[in-house]
């Protein structure tokens, strides 16, 4: 595996962004909820993590908003931020790919994924967050590369990798090279697995196509946001191909949970705490400390058990006559292991 030096643009820390950076304010001063028609001002939206305060509808978030939210407003360190889309096919559909990219970049994002090193509730980790606003969050070469570098960075720092997806799938304008990014993300996860590091997925609306059919399906633990569409083929393609009438909740997070593809549907406002707790659970103690700690605690556990066992005269009768070394004797001390 070729390991390029990992470049970090620390000039992109929160608060130091250029004025031409991502819009911190939503266009206009208000947004209305597509579900319940409630109106919210931009600062109300931000305060409530872009969730409707009335009906809990989860609005889209930019990648930067996502990283800020997970980092609890603390700065984060971008990984692979210098990468930009190229146009290997010189692709033109209704307009040239280069023009589409230029227009997307002009809105402030540099690509459809930002990878960053940060802390969630005190747990250091790497997060790759997708940006649906950049060409539909489509996965081209830069997304694949930023994801791979995120995994490699996580391996280098020995921290878990988290990804928040929001994507229409592979970026068609990069042709078969976009398809190959699916495999690239798998390679990255395999390296992460070699390092015994966890990979946690957060499926935001929408997670479809080649993103769902690659790394987004492979979380050790997989959360989804309420109402997120999660599918390989979107509802329109399915209805056109098979002439099936799809249920209204087809592919939504809640239904994917029922079908066993998601561990939990988690409200975005609870996500940092939930992720922080999970990373805490998964943290491996340093090898040596682990053994001594385990030994200590086991000793404690055994002493408590021994106290309890005083009240169990019936047990010793039942266990009588057995080879001592194979039996659990709560009243006996431990030999060092």
């Amino acid at each position, binding site marked *: 595996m070729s390991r390029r030096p990992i470049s970090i643009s620390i000039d992109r820390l929160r608060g130091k962004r250029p004025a031409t950076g991502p819009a911190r304010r939503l266009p206009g001063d208000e947004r209305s909820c597509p579900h319940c028609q409630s109106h919210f001002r931009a600062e109300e939206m931000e305060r409530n993590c872009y969730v409707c305060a009335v009906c809990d509808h989860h609005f889209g978030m930019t990648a930067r908003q996502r990283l800020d939210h997970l980092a609890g407003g603390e700065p984060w360190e971008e990984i692979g931020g210098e990468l930009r889309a190229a146009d290997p096919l010189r692709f033109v559909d209704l307009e040239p790919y280069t023009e589409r990219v230029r227009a997307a970049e002009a809105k402030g994002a540099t690509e459809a994924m930002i990878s960053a090193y940060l802390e969630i509730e005190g747990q250091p980790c790497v997060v790759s967050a997708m940006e649906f606003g950049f060409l539909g969050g489509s996965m081209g070469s830069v997304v694949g590369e930023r994801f791979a570098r995120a995994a490699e960075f996580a391996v280098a720092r020995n921290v878990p990798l988290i990804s928040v997806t929001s994507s229409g799938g592979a970026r068609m304008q990069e042709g078969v090279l976009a398809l190959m990014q699916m495999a690239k993300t798998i390679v990255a996860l395999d390296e992460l697995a070699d390092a015994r590091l966890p990979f946690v997925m957060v499926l935001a609306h929408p997670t479809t196509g080649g993103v769902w059919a690659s790394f987004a399906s492979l979380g050790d633990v997989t959360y989804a946001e309420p109402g997120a569409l999660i599918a390989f083929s979107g509802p329109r393609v399915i209805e056109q191909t098979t002439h099936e009438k799809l249920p209204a909740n087809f592919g939504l997070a809640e239904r994917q949970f029922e079908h066993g593809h998601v561990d939990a549907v988690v409200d975005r406002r609870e996500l940092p705490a939930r992720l922080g707790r999970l990373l805490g*659970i998964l943290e491996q103690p340093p090898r040596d400390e682990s053994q001594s700690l*385990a030994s200590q605690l086991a000793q404690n556990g055994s002493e408590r058990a021994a106290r309890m066992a005083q009240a169990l005269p019936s047990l010793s009768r039942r266990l009588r006559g057995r080879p001592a070394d194979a039996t*659990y004797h709560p009243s006996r001390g431990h030999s060092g292991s």
Partner: protein
Amino acid sequence: MSTPTASSGRGGRFVRRIAGRLAGSEAVPGDTWDAVLLARHQDRPYPLDYIARLMPDFEELHGDRLKGDDPAIVAGIGRYHGAPLAVIGQQKGRDAQDRAYRNFGMPSPEGYRKGMRLMDLCERLEIPLVTLIDTPGAFPGADAEERGQGGAIARSMLMMLRLRVPTVAVIIGEGSSGGALALGVADRVVMLENATYSVISPEGASAILWRDASKAKLAAAAFKPTAANCYRWGVADAVVPEPEGGAHSAHDEAARLLDGYLSRTIRELQALPLAERRRQRRERFRRLGAMREATSA
């Protein structure tokens, strides 16, 4: 034909695999049915009761990534004595509604496959595994059959056997049939004092062997499925005491007693080299059984 206590007899000599253990004192016969009732007591702690006490930080995982999520099996990862620990257990319900929801602790293939998904996670992230066994058996349904109930159980056993991380199986209540053993192929298999472990439920055996559904007590006495007997046969490596009066009478205390055994055992297993742990695990199940050898065919 020889009986097990005779070391020689017509046509054969006894293979002394379990003879040493059987020479010990017999189980107290009257206890058997009581043990069956205790093992199934509706106030007995279930996996989530132990988990809540042993691991306040616990993340339950859901779904087999194939078809669905089976509430009869709970699976997840928690923080245990400063390190991650994975738990898979059969979960019965306590009230009527919950019992139906949990399908009376009878897993479907999706449940075992959820467990295997967690085993895969254990393997990759080097997390030890504890299984908590309490089931009347795998769910006997036509759909479950067609989705591969037999294969799910078999693969679950194979996957447990191959795991490189330390594993402990605890029969916490009723361990019946292959549906229980699917989670029971561990480095150490232990039973709570009032748990039972058997090839079939007494009711099932009664219907099949006695052709009379009312002979469950008789069947229980014949199977002798108590922890003490399973220990004698080498099926259980240890018996973990319950609070006086049974685990159902004091969940906290039951959890503390289990904690003492588990924390010590996981530590001991982690101290063993991988190759030795796997050798022991294989050997443990390779040697179980009782048979004679014919001197001449």
